[in-house]
Structures are given as C-alpha cells and as structure tokens.
C-alpha cells in the first residue's frame, strides 16, 4: 500500500512542480542560461487558405466573439480611418494583455478582420504544435522571432500576399500596463513594403486581464480601442524615423482616449502629450493606476438590476 501511496505522492509532486497542464516556468536566476529555442517552424499557410478562413470565421463568430462580449464591454472609436485607406496595412498597437488580439480583431469591420493576420511570438505561441494550430486557427497568427533580432521572411510574405498585419511592437505584454519600448519590426515592414501603418491604442485590457491571469476579471470590465490616422512612410523614410512617429501616434491616441480629441491635439501641438511609458513613480503606483478600467460609456444606460 505504501508503494502505491508513494507513487501517488510522487505524481502529485511532479504535477505540481512541473505545472502539468500549464506552461512550464524557468527559475528567474536560471533564465540567462536558457538555451535559445530551436526554431521549430510550424507552417501556418494553411490557416490563410480557404478552408482555414472558413474554419476561423466559424470559430471567431460562433465561439470567440460571444465569449469575448460576455466577459468585457468594448468601446470602439476611429474606424472611419479605414475607409480612407486601402489594404493591406500594418496595424500597430500597444500590448498589455492576451485580450488585445481579440479586442483589435473583433473591433475591425468584418472585411478587414477576415484579411488580417497577427504576428505572434514564435517562442511562446509556436513552441508546441497544439498551441501553434490553435492560435493560427483562431487568430490567424504567424510566427515572428522576437529574440534573434533578425526579421524572418514570413511577415513580409504574408504582407505581400495582401494580408494586413497586426503587430505589437513592444514584443511582449507590459508588466505594469504602461507602454514599453517599440521595436523596429513594424516600421521596417511598412518601409520595406510601402504600406500604411494604422496606429491603434487601447486601454483597459491590463485592468481586465493582466499577465498571469487566464481569464478576464468578473464584472464585464470596460475596454476602449481607438484607431488613428494612417501613417504613410515617405519615399525616403527609414524605419528609424518612422518608428518614433508610430509611437507618438499611439501615445496621442491614448491621450485622446483618456481625454478628448481637441485636448489631445493641443497637447500634441505643444509637445506635452503624456509619455505612454508612464510616470517615474514607485512600481506599485504605476500598476495601481493601470488597474483602474476606463470609465464606462457615459451615454450608455447601465443595467444594474441583476448586478451586485
């Protein structure tokens, strides 16, 4: 009996220690010694073929969207910019949560949503076949290397095929909800392929589902998303000069979302747009500020009868 009991205890200890069913973790002090992951390329072309598109349409409309809308409230602004631009484009957004991708995709008009692919970290979303298949099917993701520093061919190929891209240039979700450093990848692609960049800013996803949380917080938190004027790279523009313009545009949109278009414009004109990286205060204060959801839509009546 003790042998059986010992076996059960062993299995429990291993299941707990190695986080069965969850993503394995590396001790913090061992992180510098993790070998670079071998780039296992899971092809995602199938996800952009007709059968893949049909399957995704069903998955998004019948599965993802109802669940998403049941968990969060959204307010979408600025979609009119898409009427003034022809695809493909590169959507560039700040990144604070796993909610960002569905928020952006489900905010897009259907014809844009169906033609948008999402750049996803190769080492995170493509490390196992089931994660790769799941994310490619549901979100039309393709792998992008965020560690090597070199750009793979895949994003350019997808763009060349006429697909718009959604890129989070921070490369990872923010740890405190504020905007991090923008990498050059999106600007590089826009310059290389001469496509417009549509800046996108959203707020509230960190408050609703920050890093480490697997499901949105209860209470249908408010999310807001705002699409900005497309940035068209000039004929001689380099990624190095375009990248700060993209970041400024996102910063302006965040400011606009938190105040008004007019106030944001005036601050932009005077060069006093708040830094999206947030104030240099104690870490807890930075997190504290971001844990507050944006104010709910004022024009919308709140149904409170069934709420606590």
């Amino acid at each position, binding site marked *: 009996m003790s042998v059986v009991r*010992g*076996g059960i205890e062993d299995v429990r200890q*291993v299941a707990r*220690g*190695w986080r069965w069913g969850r993503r394995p973790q590396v*001790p*913090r*002090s*061992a992180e510098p*010694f993790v070998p670079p992951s071998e780039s296992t390329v899971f092809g995602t072309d199938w996800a952009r073929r007709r059968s893949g598109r049909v399957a995704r349409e069903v998955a998004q409309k019948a599965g993802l969207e109802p669940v998403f809308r049941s968990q969060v409230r959204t307010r979408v602004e600025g979609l009119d910019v898409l009427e003034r631009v022809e695809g493909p484009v590169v959507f560039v957004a700040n990144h604070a949560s796993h909610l960002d991708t569905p928020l952006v995709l489900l905010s897009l008009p259907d014809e844009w949503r169906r033609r948008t692919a999402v750049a996803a970290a190769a080492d995170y979303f493509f490390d196992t076949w089931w994660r790769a298949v799941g994310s490619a099917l549901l979100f039309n993701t393709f792998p992008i290397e965020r560690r090597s520093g070199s750009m793979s061919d895949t994003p350019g190929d997808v763009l060349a095929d006429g697909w718009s891209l959604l890129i989070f240039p921070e490369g990872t979700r923010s740890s405190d909800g504020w905007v991090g450093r923008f990498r050059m990848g999106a600007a590089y692609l826009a310059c290389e392929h001469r496509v417009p960049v549509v800046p996108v800013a959203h707020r509230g996803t960190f408050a609703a589902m920050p890093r480490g949380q697997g499901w949105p917080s209860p209470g249908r938190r408010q999310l807001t998303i705002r699409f900005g004027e497309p940035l068209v790279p000039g004929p001689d523009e380099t990624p190095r000069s375009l990248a700060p313009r993209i970041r400024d545009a996102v910063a302006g949109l965040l400011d606009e979302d938190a105040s008004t278009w007019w106030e944001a414009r005036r601050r932009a004109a005077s060069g006093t747009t708040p830094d999206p990286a947030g104030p240099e205060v104690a870490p807890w204060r930075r997190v504290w500020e971001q844990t507050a959801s944006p104010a709910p839509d004022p024009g919308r009546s709140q149904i409170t009868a069934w709420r606590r």
Partner: protein
Amino acid sequence: MSRPGFVLEVDDRTPPLVVHEGQGFRLEEFPHGTRVVYPPESLPTVPDVEQAIRDALLSPVDSEPLPELLFPGMRLTIAFDDLSLPLPTMRPPDIRQRVIEQVLTMAAEAGVDDVELVAATALHRRMTPAELKHVVGERVFRSFHPQGALYNFDAEDRDNLVHLGTTEKGEDVEISKRAAESDLLVYVNVNLVAMDGGHKSVGIGLASYNSLRHHHNPQTMVRSHSFMDHRASHLHHSAWRMGRLIREHVKVFQIETTLDNEVFPAPYDFLMKREWEWSWRDQGTMLGARRGLAVAPRRLRHKLFHDMRAPYGLTGINAGEVEAVHDRTIATVHRQQLVEVEGQSDVLVMGVPYLGPYNVGSTMNPILATCMGLGYYFNSYRGAPVVRRGGAVILYHPLDEGFHQLHHPSYVDFYEEVLAESTDPTVIGEKYERQFATDPWYIHLYRTSHAYHGVHPFYMWYWAAHAMDHVDDVIWVGANRRAASRLGFRAASTLADALEMASDTVGSSPSITYLHNPPHLLADVRA
C-alpha cells in the same frame, strides 16, 4: 555548445530538485533563497580519440616524443590508475586501454621486450582479472596477464619495494621497485577531478604505507584547503616533494586524460539535466525509476546502479613531463567542472550517491559515505569552503548498506571498536592507526584476497578531518540513526527537521547552498 555551470537561487518557479541518497534519489523542495550550484554541461569531446592519443605521444610537453624514449633491451613499466577511476566505471573501451594499446604499439615497433603493466592500487584492494581486463582491454590482458606481466601493485611485498630516500621534510619515499628501476615509467591516468594526477599518480599510486603515512594523516588533511587545489593542499605539497625525488631516480612519462561530465547513461540521463528543463519523458522516467527502486529488492537495486557504465567522452589528453602535463590537465578539468560561487553560506547540503572510489562493485558503508560526503564533496571547492567556519553540513544517505566482508574487513573493526571509542581523527590515528596498518591478518587479506589495506578506513576518516574541523554540525537526512550516532553525527527524517536541528548552530533562517553533484563540480568560492 555546452553551457557553463551556474548558481541557481530557488524561487517560486523552481521545481523540486534531485538529491542523490545512496542507491536512490529523492526530489527535494528547498526553501526559497537556497543557492544550488550546477556543474557546467559536458565540454565538446575530441573528434578523433586515436589521433589525439597519437598526437600527445608524438608531441609531448617538455619531453622527447615517446618513440625516442623507447629502445631495445630497456625495462619499460606502464602503470595505470585502478578501478577507483573514473566513477562510474567507463563504458568500454576504457580510455586507459586506448592509450596503453598505442604505447605498446610503439614499444613493439621499437623492439622493447621487457614490459610490465602495473595497476597503481596503492593500499586499495586488488582488482580482479575481469576488472583488469575491463581497464586495459582484451588484447593487452591476453598478452600480459597469463605471463604475470600485468598485475596489481603490492604495497606489502617488501622484496619488490625500494626506498629512494627522504624528502627535504624527512618524508620517506618508498615505491614499487620495478617502477623505480625501469628505464622508463609510463603512467596512464584518468584525471576525473582536480585532485587526481600530477605527482600523486606515481608518488601515491605506487607507494607503500611507509611513504603514504607522511601525508595521509589528520594534521596534513586538516591543512589541505582543499584537496582539489594542489597548490593549496598540504597533501599534494607532500606528494609533489616525493614526486620530485622520484624524478631523480626514474624517467616518468606522464599521460593524463580528462573526461566530460557524461556520468549517467540513458535512460538515467535525466539526472544530469537541469530539472526545470525535464521533458515529459524525463519526468516519466524519473517517476518510473523512483517506483522501480522503491519496490526492487536490495540486490536488484545494487545491480541496477553498479552495472551502470558511464558514457564518458575524452575532452583532452596531455603527455610528457609530470608537472607541465598536469598544469594543462587541470586547466581542462577546471573548464569542465569549475563554477563561481559568491561567498560562503551557513549550511551546505550534499547528496551522497551510491558510488565512491572505494566501493566499485561493493557497498557504500557508513565510513565510505562519510568520506564521500565530508571528504570529497565537501572539498569540492577552490578558495574557501562553500560553508562558513562553524556552519552546518546536511548530507543525504541512508547509511544502511552495511559492510562488504570481502572488500572492507578492517572497516568492520574500525566501525565497531575504534569509532565506538572516539571519532576524533587525531586521537584514533595516534592510538590505533599503526595497529591496523601492521595487523598481519589484514595484510594477508590485502595481499591475497580483495581487501582494502588494514589502514584504509583510517584514511577515509582523515579525508573528512578538514570538514569535521571546519563545521560545527553534521546532520544526515534519511539516515539510520544508530549508524549516524556511531559516526558522531545526528540523523533527521527530512530537510526541514535537519534545518530545525541545525538552528542551534546557524540560527533559524540560515543561508543554504546545495551542491548539485554528480555530475562532478568544483565550486570556486569567492569568500
């Protein structure tokens, strides 16, 4: 590309870690903040072993090429490390076989007739013919063993020992007569850890008790900081003095080999991996191994472990003058095993595995477990001990394997009679060492059977003298309480209990360092 060793700090993301304990292992959940020293991964091995050996023999360091030292009519003796190296025993072909075969090929081409091969066993047990065959290979064994030209060194054969003189410190140098009177003595070593090799090879491997007693004693051992650094070890200083005297009498051509860290063969190779990198297969194998060992009878468990053959690879080979060769060898060993550790800690944790140098095919009795833990693993440092003076050591081993009657007869008496009276190395050394060393029955067993010399258990105890002098508390986790008590230590059921017991010495929130060993590591401690 092999990754360097490093010091892990246990946090909430750290899975349970493997701790060896005799013929088994456990998964231990260490307190957060515990430092765990991981050895470097295996270095790249030499691409062509045969060519590397040939190159070393033809282009030696500070010596003429081996073929130039060989001539017809000469007396050639080839000595080699015994089965205490490497650990575990190497998967065939053993590296010594491959080296000796090339040396003999050159000797045959030079027309050398008088060749003898000696296993440098010193006071270790005689190797069996099968063990000799494993080390030197079938060709060499068949060519020399039936003629009596391949044999174990006998440190009690007075007729075949020669006293070469005394060092400037008055140390007797008495070694094998055949080796000392040869025109050339070729020594083939396996430099598994930094304390092996150099002048220790001939000066200790082919020496008698009369010579060994000068450095294998508590006073020398306590002052050796540590055995893994021959420049700071009094034991090695003595061996070096003796080696330089030997060099005046016989030409020694030293061949030193270094190995990588491939200690465990598949499917036990998960024991060499960093736990958080275990695959599903590794986790499954580990669970299977744990359950299998839990239900396996003791004999089967013993067989499972002792039949393991390590898939070691050759990382380097150097030949020529002893000291020049050894400097290069040590550099390679350091590359393979050295890990920088910042500062000492209050508690040092070590898991004592199933195998040490003196229980190959045998049992790890409580004295050998002490030697392994407090002798070798404790001394796996350079600079300063991993644990501070007055700290505590926590060891894992059941101490329940008993004594091998054939291999360790004098250990039984040492355990039952000597340790019952005192565990102080100096006291027991002064009172009993000579009696055990000269006991005719032990000498008879050493010479004719496969017993370690009568004085050997004393040496094991002396190896631990530095640790016993340095720390205030030694606690064995999962150990037989009576055995631990006889050794002068305490036993605890769990790590938490051991830390609780050690709190009198090191307080209730001590800093802890765990040496994740094996595979072999050497902590380079910056105190």
